[in-house]
């Protein structure tokens, strides 16, 4: 069953078409991956689902649990059960990690201490720290995941959860994804990484604002193996995308 459904969703920014009549079902309880070249519209698709400013004026319809959500604002969608972790998380001057996680906390999420344990950052050391540029990029990515663990949304959008982090931290990101799924979240992750793709159960290939293929991981992983799925567009960077 689809928890999230997009029906002919299109978006233009500055008169440039970014998403082109996308129709897709995201099945409940799955980890979905979205892959594709830079500029394909992957992050934009996640922003449209989240309903961020500048990404609200779309044609087509978004359904969450069979109810249209086009008119809902970001926080209304969040309260319904959709949330997003940015590729480059925000820096909050003056707010501590604890304050950020406390603001994100919902009743059915992990405790703040449990979430910190999952992401491998000692609570005693990190919770009093400022959630700003004094944290490394990898630490901020992990704290972003912790904010979702304490929230436990029904749909989790992850925009390149592995970018800018080391191998050890990547394992913690995978742990967090596994726990979110185990506790009932549907995960939609955007990635350029084979390692992340292989954690998914279903994948979509995007190009030029379209979803041009979908299926199991074996099928879509061909994109990473220079066996690009036939496509009308000639500018897909077949090589160099995979790590």
């Amino acid at each position: 069953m689809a928890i999230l459904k997009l029906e002919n969703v299109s978006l233009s920014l500055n008169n440039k078409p970014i998403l082109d009549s996308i129709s897709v079902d995201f099945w409940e309880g799955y980890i979905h991956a979205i892959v594709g070249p830079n500029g394909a519209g992957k992050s934009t698709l996640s922003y449209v689902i989240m309903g961020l400013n500048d990404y609200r004026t779309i044609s087509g319809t978004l359904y969450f649990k069979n109810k249209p959500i086009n008119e809902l604002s970001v926080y209304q969608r969040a309260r319904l059960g959709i949330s997003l972790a940015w590729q480059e998380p925000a820096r909050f001057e003056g707010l501590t990690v604890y304050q950020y996680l406390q603001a994100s906390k919902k009743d059915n999420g992990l405790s703040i201490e449990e979430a910190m344990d999952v992401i491998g950052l000692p609570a005693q050391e990190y919770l009093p720290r400022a959630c700003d540029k004094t944290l490394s990029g990898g630490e901020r990515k992990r704290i972003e995941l912790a904010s979702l663990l304490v929230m436990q949304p029904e749909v989790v959008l992850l925009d390149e959860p592995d970018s800018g982090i080391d191998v050890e931290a990547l394992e913690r990101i995978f742990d967090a994804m596994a726990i979110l799924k185990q506790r009932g979240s549907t995960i939609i992750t955007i990635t350029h990484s084979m390692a992340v793709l292989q954690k998914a159960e279903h994948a979509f290939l995007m190009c030029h604002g379209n979803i041009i293929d979908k299926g199991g991981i074996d099928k879509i992983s061909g994109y990473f193996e220079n066996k690009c799925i036939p496509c009308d567009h000639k500018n897909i960077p077949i090589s160099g995308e995979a790590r």
Partner: protein
Amino acid sequence: MDDRRAVAQTLYKTMGLTDAALNDPDIAHLVINSNMVVASHLVEGLVVEPAETQNGVRVTMRVLAGHIIQKPVHLCFGMLPEDGLQEIIMDVTIEEHASVSILAHCTFPNAKNITHKMEAVITIKEGASYSYLERHVHAASGFITVLPHAIVTVEKNATFKTDFELLRGKAGIIDIDYETTCYEHSHLEMNAKVNGIQDDAITIRETGHLNGEGAVGVLTTRIAVRDTAQATVYNTLTAHAAYARGHVDCKEIIQDRATAKAIPVVEVYHPKAHVTHEAAIGSVDDKQLQTLMARGLSEDEAVDLIIQGLLSGS
């Protein structure tokens, strides 16, 4: 309990504090209501001579050479009446290699038309350290004018740190004017955090002259204004000697029809000195806002939390 002691306790309560500090023999304190000293206690190495004047007090404070005052000294300047003028004249000397931290509370919980002025001359002698946190608590309405002015000298290897905070209540008219001169290898840090609402008018002038070799100065200002409040920040750092280092950092968040100006001035008169500045004025950062909203906070809740962070951060 005598009347003065009761007034002191009332002033502490208006700041949301217990009066525990007033009962701790290791914590020095001086509590002024209008022009009256209502409580005082000293510790070894600290000499404070308050004198009541017509509209306030004249305070001479010295920390004797070599004395390290372990616990912050509590100063409380307040006015319980609704109207009036309070003038504080301070002459502060931190003698050689002495150290003290001051926690100053200024509370005007019933203010309808109050002016609070402070004129301070502060001398921090060689190797000494002086830290001064001034925290204001104002009423939610009414009219108050706050005019803290100080001339500060920071001698060789000495340290001066000041924090001004006005985060609760209506700021009114704020005009802060601190001018500091720093000599060899001294450290200067001046921070101001003010929340302005309604028709508040906030002016901050902080100036540091890094005259000595290796002197270091940082001026940091954080302001949030909403409604029709106005804020103007003049931060000036001048560097006159080799290896003097300085940084000016001003961030202001505006909402509604509020306005803000930042005028950072950096002047360098020596080729081996280096001073930088950054200033940012604008609405709440969109990414921070949308991140918090994506966690389920309404826009108002998210804005409040971001401003709380801006004004509470170091």
